[in-house]
């Protein structure tokens, strides 16, 4: 019962984070702030959902596989954000600064 | 119930993605959307209890082919940058619209006769599928029926598929393998590939 509640909290929080990230991508003015919105929420969103699913699955091979996916995402997701930002900066995309964005 | 909701959601996403692909002009974004399309299809296959197909779709469609298409884009140029303007259509859009509508109506009419998903009396299920389901574990001892059918019952078929994959690789090598022949050394390399 408690596990059910915990897992539902995790799943709902994860889903909410995903939606927040999507809203952030849609609302934010430039590439870097969008990446900021997506990159941060995305990682935690996936992890919370995996945690919720793991709590539902209980101890076993399924939970172990979910843990492996967890580890994989833990490393790849921030790295992907970093690589994306790095590549954008390299190719000369300037972050939009505060003064400019006010005019939109 | 929950399957229906997931199906409808995934299909809606698929439709949205395909509309976005049609309307987009940036080729890089289109390649990314193709990857998303494949991933959504993979999710749909999982809902339909076909994890093997979903696996292949996710690995090939969303993974490798995206990389290959990006590589192709890097070779060619992003067409939105070229000074190419699309010619205005030569005729009114009514004729294509009517053709598409009629074809779509015929297809929808055709779906009424298609047996429902998982119907045991469907023509596809009555021929050899029953035999595979009943005998594959006894005859091959392999729990994954897909592997048993793929590798054992239809071994010829899979041999042909592998030959197709190999032929594709050889064809790519013959067409664009070997570096740009700036030096004659590279040409020799290409000759070796021909023998292989």
């Amino acid at each position, binding site marked *: 019962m408690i596990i059910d509640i915990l897992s539902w909290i995790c799943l709902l929080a994860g889903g909410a984070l995903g939606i927040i990230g999507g809203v952030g991508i849609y609302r934010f003015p430039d590439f870097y702030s969008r990446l900021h919105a997506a990159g941060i929420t995305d990682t935690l969103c996936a992890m919370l959902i995996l945690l919720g699913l793991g709590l539902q699955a209980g101890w076993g091979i399924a939970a172990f596989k979910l843990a492996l996916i967890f580890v994989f995402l833990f490393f790849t997701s921030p790295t992907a954000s*970093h690589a994306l930002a790095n590549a954008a900066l390299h190719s000369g995309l300037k972050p939009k600064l505060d003064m400019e964005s006010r005019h939109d | 119930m929950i399957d229906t909701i997931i199906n409808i959601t995934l299909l809606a996403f698929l439709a949205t993605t395909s509309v976005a692909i049609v309307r987009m002009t940036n080729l890089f974004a289109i390649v990314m959307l193709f990857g998303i399309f494949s991933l959504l299809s993979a999710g749909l296959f999982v809902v339909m209890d076909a994890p093997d197909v979903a696996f292949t779709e996710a*690995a090939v469609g969303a993974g490798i082919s995206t990389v290959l298409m990006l590589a192709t884009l890097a070779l060619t140029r992003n067409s939105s940058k070229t000074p190419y303007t699309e010619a205005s259509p030569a005729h009114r859009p009514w004729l294509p619209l009517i053709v598409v509508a009629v074809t779509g109506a015929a297809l929808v009419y055709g779906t009424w006769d298609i047996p429902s998903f998982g119907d045991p009396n469907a023509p596809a299920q009555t021929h050899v599928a029953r035999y595979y389901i009943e005998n594959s574990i006894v005859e*091959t001892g*392999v729990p994954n029926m897909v592997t048993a059918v793929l590798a054992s019952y239809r071994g010829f078929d899979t041999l042909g598929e592998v030959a197709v994959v190999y032929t594709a690789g050889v064809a790519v090598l013959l067409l*664009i*393998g070997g570096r740009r022949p700036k030096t004659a050394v590279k040409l020799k390399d290409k000759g070796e590939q021909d023998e292989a």
Partner: protein
Amino acid sequence: MKPNLILHVVAKFLIPLIIVFSLYVQFHGDFGPGGGFQAGVIFSAAFILYALVFGLDAAEKIIPSQWLHMLAALGLVLYAGVGVVTLLLGGNYLDYTVLGATQIAGQHLGILLVELGVGITVGAVMLIIFFAFAGRGRT
């Protein structure tokens, strides 16, 4: 700090995992979803990741093109060779039953070898195509 330090470290951490996963998919295909096609693609994805992060030349140093050409053919030959062996042992072409003492053992061995052939060919061909496309760009 080098600009790609994070990518290098994470890629070095991930590539062995991807290869292990592809081997799992390859040899666990009898029991769960997976098989030669998927495993070959995942295996090639590991090397493609290496090529993307460390550069094409480094990747070609690890797995030279000549090897790939031979591996692509080797997989197909392995597959067809299993069929020839079953012929020689008195069965039909690709009838794995004659490979083992019992029918189950024979089928198991045959499926394993055939899937291995599929995996080798698919992985090698994917890498060949990738190297051909990516290598074309440089002059």
